Protein backbone atom coordinates (compact mmCIF):
# COMPACT_ATOMS: atom_id res chain seq x y z
CA UNK A 1 0.00 0.00 0.00
CA UNK A 2 1.70 3.14 -1.18
CA UNK A 3 0.72 6.51 0.18
CA UNK A 4 0.58 9.14 -2.54
CA UNK A 5 2.52 11.88 -0.74
CA UNK A 6 6.21 11.40 -1.34
CA UNK A 7 8.18 10.55 1.79
CA UNK A 8 11.42 11.51 0.11
CA UNK A 9 11.80 14.21 -2.46
CA UNK A 10 15.02 15.32 -4.05
CA UNK A 11 15.17 18.17 -6.51
CA UNK A 12 18.18 19.20 -8.58
CA UNK A 13 20.57 17.88 -5.96
CA UNK A 14 24.26 18.60 -6.45
CA UNK A 15 27.23 17.74 -4.30
CA UNK A 16 30.69 18.78 -5.37
CA UNK A 17 33.92 17.94 -3.54
CA UNK A 18 37.27 19.60 -3.92
CA UNK A 19 40.09 17.09 -4.15
CA UNK A 20 43.80 17.70 -4.21
CA UNK A 21 45.73 16.34 -7.17
CA UNK A 22 49.33 15.23 -6.85
CA UNK A 23 51.75 14.44 -9.63
CA UNK A 24 53.27 11.00 -9.29
CA UNK A 25 56.63 10.42 -7.65
CA UNK A 26 58.75 12.10 -5.02
CA UNK A 27 59.21 15.20 -7.15
CA UNK A 28 55.45 15.56 -7.29
CA UNK A 29 55.37 15.37 -3.50
CA UNK A 30 57.94 18.17 -3.18
CA UNK A 31 56.09 20.30 -5.70
CA UNK A 32 52.87 19.79 -3.80
CA UNK A 33 54.50 21.25 -0.66
CA UNK A 34 54.54 24.64 -2.37
CA UNK A 35 51.86 24.53 -4.95
CA UNK A 36 48.75 22.41 -4.91
CA UNK A 37 46.20 21.96 -7.61
CA UNK A 38 42.68 21.11 -6.70
CA UNK A 39 40.00 19.59 -8.81
CA UNK A 40 36.26 19.72 -8.37
CA UNK A 41 34.62 16.31 -8.33
CA UNK A 42 30.92 16.26 -9.12
CA UNK A 43 29.83 13.35 -6.93
CA UNK A 44 26.15 14.12 -7.45
CA UNK A 45 25.22 16.32 -10.40
CA UNK A 46 21.63 17.47 -10.67
CA UNK A 47 19.64 14.48 -9.49
CA UNK A 48 15.88 14.62 -8.86
CA UNK A 49 13.43 11.94 -7.74
CA UNK A 50 10.58 11.29 -5.33
CA UNK A 51 9.87 8.17 -3.32
CA UNK A 52 6.53 7.24 -1.78
CA UNK A 53 5.86 5.55 1.52
CA UNK A 54 6.41 1.81 1.48
CA UNK A 55 8.51 1.80 -1.67
CA UNK A 56 11.73 -0.19 -1.84
CA UNK A 57 14.05 1.51 -4.29
CA UNK A 58 17.38 0.19 -5.48
CA UNK A 59 20.20 2.55 -6.30
CA UNK A 60 22.34 1.00 -8.98
CA UNK A 61 25.64 2.36 -10.17
CA UNK A 62 29.31 1.66 -10.45
CA UNK A 63 31.82 2.58 -7.74
CA UNK A 64 32.00 6.33 -7.34
CA UNK A 65 28.73 6.90 -9.20
CA UNK A 66 27.30 8.96 -6.34
CA UNK A 67 24.99 6.41 -4.69
CA UNK A 68 26.48 6.59 -1.22
CA UNK A 69 26.88 10.37 -1.41
CA UNK A 70 23.15 10.67 -2.14
CA UNK A 71 22.32 8.44 0.83
CA UNK A 72 24.58 10.50 3.08
CA UNK A 73 22.83 13.69 2.00
CA UNK A 74 19.42 12.10 2.65
CA UNK A 75 20.67 11.16 6.13
CA UNK A 76 21.79 14.71 6.88
CA UNK A 77 25.48 13.78 7.03
CA UNK A 78 26.52 15.84 4.04
CA UNK A 79 25.58 19.36 3.19
CA UNK A 80 24.32 19.61 -0.39
CA UNK A 81 26.14 22.02 -2.70
CA UNK A 82 22.82 22.86 -4.39
CA UNK A 83 19.26 21.62 -4.58
CA UNK A 84 16.37 20.76 -2.31
CA UNK A 85 16.02 17.63 -0.21
CA UNK A 86 13.10 16.62 1.98
CA UNK A 87 12.78 13.40 3.95
CA UNK A 88 9.61 12.83 5.99
CA UNK A 89 8.93 16.53 5.56
CA UNK A 90 12.23 17.60 7.12
CA UNK A 91 15.40 19.03 5.70
CA UNK A 92 17.84 16.28 6.72
CA UNK A 93 20.66 18.76 7.17
CA UNK A 94 18.81 20.41 10.09
CA UNK A 95 19.38 17.15 11.97
CA UNK A 96 16.27 17.59 14.07
CA UNK A 97 15.89 14.90 16.74
CA UNK A 98 12.28 14.27 15.71
CA UNK A 99 13.50 13.47 12.19
CA UNK A 100 16.48 11.42 13.29
CA UNK A 101 14.22 9.20 15.41
CA UNK A 102 12.35 8.14 12.27
CA UNK A 103 15.12 6.89 10.03
CA UNK A 104 18.19 4.70 10.12
CA UNK A 105 21.29 4.42 8.00
CA UNK A 106 23.07 1.08 7.76
CA UNK A 107 26.42 0.90 6.06
CA UNK A 108 27.63 -2.58 5.24
CA UNK A 109 31.29 -1.81 5.59
CA UNK A 110 31.20 0.28 8.76
CA UNK A 111 29.60 -0.27 12.07
CA UNK A 112 27.86 1.61 14.79
CA UNK A 113 28.31 -1.15 17.37
CA UNK A 114 30.82 -0.52 20.15
CA UNK A 115 33.70 -2.65 19.04
CA UNK A 116 35.05 -3.71 22.41
CA UNK A 117 31.71 -4.40 24.10
CA UNK A 118 28.96 -6.95 23.44
CA UNK A 119 26.27 -5.87 20.95
CA UNK A 120 23.68 -5.82 23.74
CA UNK A 121 25.39 -2.75 25.22
CA UNK A 122 24.93 -0.81 21.98
CA UNK A 123 21.29 -1.89 21.88
CA UNK A 124 20.77 -0.52 25.39
CA UNK A 125 22.52 2.72 24.45
CA UNK A 126 20.30 3.07 21.38
CA UNK A 127 17.27 2.41 23.57
CA UNK A 128 18.28 5.43 25.65
CA UNK A 129 19.31 7.59 22.67
CA UNK A 130 16.08 6.98 20.77
CA UNK A 131 14.07 7.13 24.01
CA UNK A 132 12.35 3.78 23.41
CA UNK A 133 10.12 2.74 26.34
CA UNK A 134 10.88 -0.60 28.02
CA UNK A 135 7.96 -2.62 26.66
CA UNK A 136 8.28 -1.79 22.94
CA UNK A 137 12.07 -2.13 23.21
CA UNK A 138 11.78 -5.61 24.61
CA UNK A 139 9.17 -6.60 22.08
CA UNK A 140 11.14 -5.31 19.08
CA UNK A 141 14.44 -6.68 20.35
CA UNK A 142 12.97 -10.13 21.03
CA UNK A 143 11.41 -10.36 17.60
CA UNK A 144 14.51 -9.09 15.79
CA UNK A 145 16.78 -11.42 17.73
CA UNK A 146 14.53 -14.35 16.95
CA UNK A 147 14.13 -13.46 13.27
CA UNK A 148 17.84 -13.15 12.76
CA UNK A 149 18.75 -16.03 15.09
CA UNK A 150 21.36 -14.23 17.16
CA UNK A 151 20.29 -15.21 20.70
CA UNK A 152 23.64 -16.82 21.44
CA UNK A 153 25.93 -13.96 20.47
CA UNK A 154 24.44 -10.93 22.21
CA UNK A 155 26.88 -11.12 25.11
CA UNK A 156 30.01 -11.65 23.04
CA UNK A 157 32.41 -8.81 22.32
CA UNK A 158 31.56 -7.39 18.88
CA UNK A 159 35.13 -7.70 17.62
CA UNK A 160 34.92 -11.46 18.15
CA UNK A 161 31.86 -11.89 15.90
CA UNK A 162 31.95 -13.03 12.28
CA UNK A 163 31.06 -10.51 9.58
CA UNK A 164 27.63 -12.06 9.10
CA UNK A 165 26.85 -12.07 12.82
CA UNK A 166 28.01 -8.49 13.12
CA UNK A 167 25.88 -7.40 10.19
CA UNK A 168 22.82 -8.95 11.81
CA UNK A 169 23.55 -7.10 15.03
CA UNK A 170 24.08 -3.90 13.03
CA UNK A 171 20.61 -4.31 11.56
CA UNK A 172 19.09 -4.89 14.98
CA UNK A 173 20.81 -1.76 16.35
CA UNK A 174 19.47 0.23 13.41
CA UNK A 175 15.90 -1.07 13.63
CA UNK A 176 15.24 -0.98 17.37
CA UNK A 177 13.47 2.36 17.06
CA UNK A 178 11.29 1.10 14.21
CA UNK A 179 12.44 3.59 11.58
CA UNK A 180 9.93 4.58 8.91
CA UNK A 181 12.72 5.22 6.45
CA UNK A 182 15.70 2.96 6.03
CA UNK A 183 18.85 3.68 4.04
CA UNK A 184 20.86 0.55 3.39
CA UNK A 185 24.27 0.99 1.82
CA UNK A 186 25.67 -2.32 0.62
CA UNK A 187 24.00 -4.28 3.44
CA UNK A 188 25.10 -7.66 2.11
CA UNK A 189 28.67 -6.83 1.15
CA UNK A 190 31.17 -9.53 2.07
CA UNK A 191 28.49 -11.99 3.20
CA UNK A 192 28.15 -15.52 1.90
CA UNK A 193 25.16 -16.38 -0.29
CA UNK A 194 23.18 -18.01 2.51
CA UNK A 195 23.60 -14.99 4.75
CA UNK A 196 22.79 -12.63 1.86
CA UNK A 197 19.55 -14.47 1.33
CA UNK A 198 18.69 -14.36 5.04
CA UNK A 199 19.24 -10.60 5.20
CA UNK A 200 17.25 -10.03 2.02
CA UNK A 201 14.30 -12.00 3.36
CA UNK A 202 14.51 -10.05 6.56
CA UNK A 203 14.53 -6.66 4.79
CA UNK A 204 11.56 -7.74 2.68
CA UNK A 205 9.61 -8.73 5.80
CA UNK A 206 10.48 -5.47 7.53
CA UNK A 207 9.17 -3.49 4.57
CA UNK A 208 5.92 -5.46 4.54
CA UNK A 209 5.29 -5.39 8.26
CA UNK A 210 5.94 -1.69 8.86
CA UNK A 211 5.25 -0.28 5.38
CA UNK A 212 8.74 1.17 5.69
CA UNK A 213 10.34 3.13 2.88
CA UNK A 214 13.69 1.65 1.95
CA UNK A 215 16.50 2.81 -0.30
CA UNK A 216 19.12 0.21 -0.97
CA UNK A 217 22.43 0.35 -2.76
CA UNK A 218 24.14 -2.86 -3.66
CA UNK A 219 26.73 -4.33 -5.93
CA UNK A 220 24.78 -7.55 -5.98
CA UNK A 221 22.02 -7.44 -8.55
CA UNK A 222 20.29 -10.25 -6.67
CA UNK A 223 19.66 -7.86 -3.78
CA UNK A 224 18.07 -5.32 -6.06
CA UNK A 225 16.15 -7.87 -8.11
CA UNK A 226 14.68 -9.58 -5.13
CA UNK A 227 13.89 -6.53 -3.03
CA UNK A 228 13.15 -3.63 -5.33
CA UNK A 229 10.40 -3.07 -7.82
CA UNK A 230 11.87 0.25 -8.73
CA UNK A 231 15.45 1.09 -9.57
CA UNK A 232 17.33 4.32 -10.03
CA UNK A 233 20.51 4.00 -12.06
CA UNK A 234 23.15 6.59 -11.31
CA UNK A 235 26.22 7.10 -13.44
CA UNK A 236 28.90 9.74 -12.83
CA UNK A 237 26.57 11.73 -10.60
CA UNK A 238 23.68 11.71 -13.08
CA UNK A 239 20.44 9.78 -12.95
CA UNK A 240 20.18 7.79 -16.16
CA UNK A 241 17.19 5.62 -15.38
CA UNK A 242 14.31 5.69 -12.91
CA UNK A 243 11.51 3.19 -13.15
CA UNK A 244 10.38 -0.40 -12.79
CA UNK A 245 13.31 -2.76 -12.79
CA UNK A 246 11.71 -4.75 -15.61
CA UNK A 247 11.54 -1.62 -17.76
CA UNK A 248 15.32 -1.43 -17.85
CA UNK A 249 15.22 -4.41 -20.15
CA UNK A 250 12.59 -2.85 -22.39
CA UNK A 251 14.49 0.40 -22.53
CA UNK A 252 18.06 -0.75 -22.84
CA UNK A 253 18.10 -4.33 -24.04
CA UNK A 254 18.71 -4.22 -27.76
CA UNK A 255 18.82 -7.98 -28.25
CA UNK A 256 17.02 -11.14 -27.33
CA UNK A 257 18.69 -14.45 -26.66
CA UNK A 258 17.81 -17.54 -28.68
CA UNK A 259 18.82 -20.89 -27.19
CA UNK A 260 18.89 -23.66 -29.75
CA UNK A 261 19.14 -27.45 -29.65
CA UNK A 262 19.70 -29.21 -32.99
CA UNK A 263 18.80 -32.77 -33.98
CA UNK A 264 21.69 -33.04 -36.45
CA UNK A 265 25.13 -31.58 -36.88
CA UNK A 266 25.12 -27.90 -37.73
CA UNK A 267 28.24 -25.82 -38.20
CA UNK A 268 28.90 -22.63 -36.38
CA UNK A 269 29.06 -20.83 -39.70
CA UNK A 270 25.50 -21.95 -40.53
CA UNK A 271 24.21 -20.52 -37.29
CA UNK A 272 26.15 -17.29 -37.61
CA UNK A 273 24.00 -16.30 -40.58
CA UNK A 274 21.08 -15.76 -38.21
CA UNK A 275 22.73 -13.79 -35.40
CA UNK A 276 25.75 -13.30 -33.20
CA UNK A 277 26.83 -16.67 -31.81
CA UNK A 278 27.50 -16.43 -28.10
CA UNK A 279 27.89 -20.12 -27.36
CA UNK A 280 28.32 -23.16 -29.54
CA UNK A 281 28.96 -26.74 -28.55
CA UNK A 282 28.91 -30.09 -30.27
CA UNK A 283 29.98 -33.38 -28.77
CA UNK A 284 29.08 -35.74 -31.63
CA UNK A 285 25.50 -36.40 -30.52
CA UNK A 286 24.37 -33.05 -29.01
CA UNK A 287 24.51 -29.77 -30.90
CA UNK A 288 23.56 -26.62 -29.02
CA UNK A 289 24.04 -22.92 -29.56
CA UNK A 290 23.04 -19.56 -28.12
CA UNK A 291 22.73 -16.55 -30.37
CA UNK A 292 21.66 -12.95 -29.85
CA UNK A 293 19.45 -11.18 -32.35
CA UNK A 294 17.93 -7.69 -32.48
CA UNK A 295 14.76 -7.60 -30.36
CA UNK A 296 12.42 -6.64 -33.20
CA UNK A 297 13.64 -9.44 -35.44
CA UNK A 298 13.59 -12.19 -32.82
CA UNK A 299 10.34 -13.81 -33.99
CA UNK A 300 11.26 -13.61 -37.63
CA UNK A 301 14.72 -15.09 -37.07
CA UNK A 302 13.21 -17.85 -34.93
CA UNK A 303 10.80 -18.84 -37.66
CA UNK A 304 13.59 -18.81 -40.26
CA UNK A 305 15.73 -20.98 -38.01
CA UNK A 306 12.93 -23.50 -37.65
CA UNK A 307 12.47 -23.55 -41.40
CA UNK A 308 16.09 -23.75 -42.51
CA UNK A 309 17.95 -25.68 -39.81
CA UNK A 310 17.21 -29.01 -38.06
CA UNK A 311 16.02 -27.33 -34.84
CA UNK A 312 14.79 -29.67 -32.14
CA UNK A 313 14.14 -27.05 -29.48
CA UNK A 314 14.11 -23.26 -29.52
CA UNK A 315 13.78 -20.84 -26.65
CA UNK A 316 13.54 -17.04 -26.83
CA UNK A 317 14.80 -15.27 -23.70
CA UNK A 318 15.26 -11.76 -22.40
CA UNK A 319 18.84 -10.96 -21.39
CA UNK A 320 19.48 -10.81 -17.63
CA UNK A 321 19.20 -7.45 -15.89
CA UNK A 322 22.87 -7.70 -14.97
CA UNK A 323 23.83 -8.07 -18.60
CA UNK A 324 21.66 -5.14 -19.64
CA UNK A 325 23.03 -2.87 -16.96
CA UNK A 326 26.56 -3.91 -17.82
CA UNK A 327 25.77 -3.01 -21.39
CA UNK A 328 24.32 0.36 -20.33
CA UNK A 329 27.53 1.28 -18.52
CA UNK A 330 29.79 -0.10 -21.20
CA UNK A 331 28.03 1.82 -23.95
CA UNK A 332 28.10 5.02 -21.91
CA UNK A 333 31.77 4.70 -21.10
CA UNK A 334 32.86 3.52 -24.51
Amino acid at each position, binding site marked *: MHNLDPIISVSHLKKYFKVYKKEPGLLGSFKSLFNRTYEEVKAVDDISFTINQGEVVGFIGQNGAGKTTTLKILSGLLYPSEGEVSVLGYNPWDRKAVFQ*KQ*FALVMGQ*KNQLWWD*LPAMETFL*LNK*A*IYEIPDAPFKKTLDSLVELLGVQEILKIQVRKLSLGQRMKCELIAALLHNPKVLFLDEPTIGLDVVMQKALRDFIKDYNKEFNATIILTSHYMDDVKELCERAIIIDSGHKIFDGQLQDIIDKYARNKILSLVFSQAVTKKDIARFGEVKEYSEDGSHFTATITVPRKEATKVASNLLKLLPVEDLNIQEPSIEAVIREVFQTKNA
Partner: protein
Amino acid sequence: MRKYWQLFLLSWQNGLVYRLSLLLWRLRQFLSTVMAMTIWTVVFTSQQTAFGYSQAQMITYIFTISILQSLVLASVLNGLSGEVYSGALSKELVKPLNLFAYLGIQDVADKAKNFIFVLIESALIFMIFKPELVLPNLTITIIFLVWLLGGMLLNFWISLLFGAIGFWSPQSWGPRFLFFMMVDFTAGKLFPLDILPQAVRAIVALTPFPYLSYYQTQLVLGRLDTAGVIQHSFILLLWVVVSGCCCIWLWKRGLQDYSAAGQ
Protein backbone atom coordinates in the same frame (compact mmCIF):
# COMPACT_ATOMS: atom_id res chain seq x y z
CA MET B 1 19.23 13.02 30.11
CA ARG B 2 19.03 9.22 30.40
CA LYS B 3 20.79 8.80 27.09
CA TYR B 4 23.82 10.70 28.34
CA TRP B 5 23.90 8.71 31.57
CA GLN B 6 23.77 5.48 29.57
CA LEU B 7 26.59 6.80 27.41
CA PHE B 8 28.57 7.66 30.53
CA LEU B 9 28.19 4.08 31.80
CA LEU B 10 29.14 2.63 28.43
CA SER B 11 32.23 4.82 28.16
CA TRP B 12 33.29 3.52 31.56
CA GLN B 13 32.79 -0.07 30.53
CA ASN B 14 34.70 0.59 27.34
CA GLY B 15 37.57 2.07 29.31
CA LEU B 16 37.73 -0.99 31.56
CA VAL B 17 37.86 -3.66 28.83
CA TYR B 18 41.62 -3.90 28.51
CA ARG B 19 42.86 -4.56 32.02
CA LEU B 20 46.56 -4.81 31.30
CA SER B 21 46.63 -1.63 29.29
CA LEU B 22 44.71 0.19 32.03
CA LEU B 23 47.01 -1.18 34.71
CA LEU B 24 50.21 -0.24 32.88
CA TRP B 25 48.94 3.21 32.04
CA ARG B 26 48.08 3.89 35.71
CA LEU B 27 51.44 2.45 36.73
CA ARG B 28 53.14 4.95 34.44
CA GLN B 29 51.25 7.85 36.00
CA PHE B 30 51.94 6.51 39.47
CA LEU B 31 55.67 6.06 38.84
CA SER B 32 56.04 9.52 37.35
CA THR B 33 54.53 11.02 40.54
CA VAL B 34 56.74 8.80 42.72
CA MET B 35 59.78 9.94 40.71
CA ALA B 36 58.93 13.61 41.10
CA MET B 37 58.34 13.10 44.84
CA THR B 38 61.66 11.30 45.21
CA ILE B 39 63.65 13.95 43.33
CA TRP B 40 62.19 16.83 45.30
CA THR B 41 62.52 14.98 48.61
CA VAL B 42 66.23 14.53 47.82
CA VAL B 43 66.59 18.19 46.80
CA PHE B 44 65.05 19.33 50.07
CA THR B 45 67.39 17.25 52.25
CA SER B 46 70.13 19.83 51.61
CA GLN B 47 68.07 23.03 51.43
CA GLN B 48 65.01 24.68 52.96
CA THR B 49 63.58 26.23 49.79
CA ALA B 50 63.91 25.69 46.07
CA PHE B 51 62.77 28.36 43.57
CA GLY B 52 60.87 30.00 46.42
CA TYR B 53 58.98 26.79 47.31
CA SER B 54 59.19 25.15 50.71
CA GLN B 55 59.23 21.34 50.80
CA ALA B 56 55.56 21.16 51.87
CA GLN B 57 54.60 23.54 49.04
CA MET B 58 56.55 21.58 46.45
CA ILE B 59 55.05 18.25 47.54
CA THR B 60 51.57 19.80 47.52
CA TYR B 61 52.39 21.15 44.04
CA ILE B 62 53.20 17.66 42.79
CA PHE B 63 50.04 16.20 44.33
CA THR B 64 47.87 18.93 42.89
CA ILE B 65 49.44 18.76 39.46
CA SER B 66 48.98 14.99 39.26
CA ILE B 67 45.29 15.38 40.10
CA LEU B 68 44.95 18.21 37.58
CA GLN B 69 46.81 16.13 35.02
CA SER B 70 44.15 13.44 35.28
CA LEU B 71 41.18 15.77 35.45
CA VAL B 72 42.10 18.51 33.05
CA LEU B 73 44.82 17.47 30.64
CA ALA B 74 44.04 13.79 30.08
CA SER B 75 41.41 13.52 27.36
CA VAL B 76 39.87 10.78 25.29
CA LEU B 77 39.34 13.33 22.54
CA ASN B 78 42.96 13.34 21.38
CA GLY B 79 42.06 11.11 18.46
CA LEU B 80 38.97 13.10 17.53
CA SER B 81 40.36 14.63 14.33
CA GLY B 82 41.09 11.12 13.05
CA GLU B 83 37.47 10.15 13.71
CA VAL B 84 36.30 13.25 11.90
CA TYR B 85 38.57 12.70 8.92
CA SER B 86 37.82 9.00 8.57
CA GLY B 87 34.10 9.64 8.81
CA ALA B 88 33.71 7.55 11.98
CA LEU B 89 31.78 10.47 13.42
CA SER B 90 28.91 9.72 11.03
CA LYS B 91 27.36 7.13 13.32
CA GLU B 92 26.82 9.80 15.98
CA LEU B 93 25.74 12.49 13.53
CA VAL B 94 22.73 10.52 12.32
CA LYS B 95 21.43 9.94 15.84
CA PRO B 96 19.27 12.25 17.94
CA LEU B 97 22.21 13.38 20.06
CA ASN B 98 23.81 16.69 20.86
CA LEU B 99 27.26 16.17 19.43
CA PHE B 100 29.12 18.36 21.92
CA ALA B 101 27.27 16.73 24.82
CA TYR B 102 28.11 13.31 23.41
CA LEU B 103 31.82 14.12 23.20
CA GLY B 104 31.75 15.91 26.55
CA ILE B 105 30.19 12.92 28.32
CA GLN B 106 32.88 10.60 26.99
CA ASP B 107 35.52 13.00 28.23
CA VAL B 108 33.89 13.37 31.64
CA ALA B 109 33.53 9.59 31.99
CA ASP B 110 37.22 9.18 31.27
CA LYS B 111 38.17 11.90 33.71
CA ALA B 112 35.97 10.42 36.42
CA LYS B 113 37.67 7.06 35.94
CA ASN B 114 41.08 8.74 36.16
CA PHE B 115 40.08 10.58 39.28
CA ILE B 116 39.18 7.42 41.15
CA PHE B 117 42.56 5.92 40.30
CA VAL B 118 44.36 9.13 41.26
CA LEU B 119 42.69 9.07 44.66
CA ILE B 120 43.86 5.51 45.28
CA GLU B 121 47.37 6.27 44.00
CA SER B 122 47.59 9.47 46.04
CA ALA B 123 46.65 7.51 49.18
CA LEU B 124 49.48 5.06 48.40
CA ILE B 125 51.98 7.85 47.82
CA PHE B 126 50.85 9.51 51.00
CA MET B 127 51.51 6.29 52.91
CA ILE B 128 54.97 5.90 51.34
CA PHE B 129 56.26 9.45 51.73
CA LYS B 130 54.09 10.67 54.64
CA PRO B 131 54.56 14.21 53.32
CA GLU B 132 53.55 17.47 54.92
CA LEU B 133 50.95 19.23 52.73
CA VAL B 134 49.67 22.76 52.43
CA LEU B 135 45.91 22.58 52.80
CA PRO B 136 43.75 25.41 51.40
CA ASN B 137 40.85 26.98 53.31
CA LEU B 138 37.20 26.64 52.24
CA THR B 139 37.08 29.81 50.09
CA ILE B 140 40.21 28.82 48.22
CA THR B 141 38.86 25.28 47.80
CA ILE B 142 35.65 26.60 46.23
CA ILE B 143 37.57 28.92 43.88
CA PHE B 144 39.88 25.99 43.05
CA LEU B 145 36.92 23.82 42.10
CA VAL B 146 35.56 26.58 39.85
CA TRP B 147 38.97 27.03 38.20
CA LEU B 148 39.24 23.27 37.85
CA LEU B 149 35.94 23.22 35.96
CA GLY B 150 37.14 26.19 33.91
CA GLY B 151 40.36 24.35 33.04
CA MET B 152 38.43 21.21 32.08
CA LEU B 153 36.10 23.19 29.86
CA LEU B 154 39.01 25.07 28.29
CA ASN B 155 40.82 21.84 27.50
CA PHE B 156 37.59 20.36 26.12
CA TRP B 157 37.20 23.26 23.68
CA ILE B 158 40.87 23.05 22.73
CA SER B 159 40.53 19.30 22.04
CA LEU B 160 37.50 20.05 19.88
CA LEU B 161 39.40 22.75 18.01
CA PHE B 162 42.11 20.22 17.19
CA GLY B 163 39.41 17.70 16.32
CA ALA B 164 37.96 20.15 13.79
CA ILE B 165 41.19 19.97 11.79
CA GLY B 166 39.93 16.56 10.64
CA PHE B 167 37.24 18.26 8.55
CA TRP B 168 39.90 19.54 6.19
CA SER B 169 43.05 17.54 6.73
CA PRO B 170 44.19 14.20 8.09
CA GLN B 171 47.24 15.85 9.61
CA SER B 172 46.25 17.00 13.06
CA TRP B 173 49.19 15.41 14.85
CA GLY B 174 51.62 18.19 13.91
CA PRO B 175 49.65 20.98 15.60
CA ARG B 176 48.56 18.63 18.36
CA PHE B 177 52.17 17.73 19.14
CA LEU B 178 53.11 21.41 19.26
CA PHE B 179 50.26 21.94 21.68
CA PHE B 180 51.50 19.14 23.97
CA MET B 181 54.94 20.71 23.98
CA MET B 182 53.47 24.08 24.87
CA VAL B 183 51.42 22.51 27.62
CA ASP B 184 54.44 20.68 29.02
CA PHE B 185 56.31 23.95 29.26
CA THR B 186 53.57 26.37 30.13
CA ALA B 187 50.96 24.49 32.12
CA GLY B 188 53.50 23.76 34.82
CA LYS B 189 53.53 20.04 34.11
CA LEU B 190 57.33 19.72 34.17
CA PHE B 191 58.22 22.53 36.58
CA PRO B 192 56.54 25.47 38.28
CA LEU B 193 56.47 28.46 35.93
CA ASP B 194 58.14 30.65 38.59
CA ILE B 195 61.40 29.25 37.27
CA LEU B 196 60.94 31.20 34.03
CA PRO B 197 62.13 34.84 33.67
CA GLN B 198 59.53 37.49 34.51
CA ALA B 199 59.13 38.67 30.88
CA VAL B 200 58.45 35.16 29.57
CA ARG B 201 56.05 34.54 32.45
CA ALA B 202 54.10 37.68 31.60
CA ILE B 203 53.65 36.52 28.00
CA VAL B 204 52.76 32.95 29.02
CA ALA B 205 50.16 34.37 31.43
CA LEU B 206 48.22 35.77 28.49
CA THR B 207 48.02 32.39 26.71
CA PRO B 208 45.42 29.77 27.68
CA PHE B 209 48.02 27.19 28.71
CA PRO B 210 48.77 28.13 32.34
CA TYR B 211 45.01 28.13 33.00
CA LEU B 212 44.93 24.42 32.33
CA SER B 213 46.65 23.65 35.64
CA TYR B 214 49.46 26.01 36.67
CA TYR B 215 47.33 28.78 38.21
CA GLN B 216 45.16 26.21 39.96
CA THR B 217 48.26 24.95 41.79
CA GLN B 218 49.32 28.49 42.70
CA LEU B 219 45.87 29.08 44.14
CA VAL B 220 46.04 25.98 46.32
CA LEU B 221 49.49 26.94 47.54
CA GLY B 222 48.26 30.38 48.55
CA ARG B 223 50.69 32.08 46.18
CA LEU B 224 48.11 34.40 44.63
CA ASP B 225 46.76 37.61 46.20
CA THR B 226 43.14 38.76 45.80
CA ALA B 227 43.96 40.94 42.78
CA GLY B 228 45.70 37.97 41.15
CA VAL B 229 42.73 35.70 41.81
CA ILE B 230 40.34 38.20 40.23
CA GLN B 231 42.63 38.83 37.26
CA HIS B 232 43.18 35.14 36.55
CA SER B 233 39.49 34.34 37.02
CA PHE B 234 38.71 36.94 34.40
CA ILE B 235 41.33 35.71 31.90
CA LEU B 236 40.27 32.08 32.40
CA LEU B 237 36.64 33.01 31.76
CA LEU B 238 37.67 34.98 28.70
CA TRP B 239 39.59 32.02 27.26
CA VAL B 240 36.73 29.63 27.93
CA VAL B 241 34.28 31.93 26.16
CA VAL B 242 36.61 32.76 23.24
CA SER B 243 37.65 29.13 22.63
CA GLY B 244 34.03 27.97 23.03
CA CYS B 245 32.79 30.48 20.44
CA CYS B 246 35.63 29.61 18.03
CA CYS B 247 34.80 25.96 18.48
CA ILE B 248 31.09 26.32 17.79
CA TRP B 249 31.80 28.45 14.70
CA LEU B 250 34.51 26.13 13.39
CA TRP B 251 32.43 22.96 13.86
CA LYS B 252 29.44 24.55 12.17
CA ARG B 253 31.66 25.44 9.25
CA GLY B 254 33.43 22.07 9.34
CA LEU B 255 30.23 20.06 9.27
CA GLN B 256 29.29 21.83 6.03
CA ASP B 257 32.54 20.61 4.50
CA TYR B 258 32.31 17.18 6.15
CA SER B 259 32.80 14.52 3.54
CA ALA B 260 32.17 11.47 5.76
CA ALA B 261 34.94 9.87 3.74
CA GLY B 262 34.67 6.13 3.59
CA GLN B 263 31.78 6.00 6.07
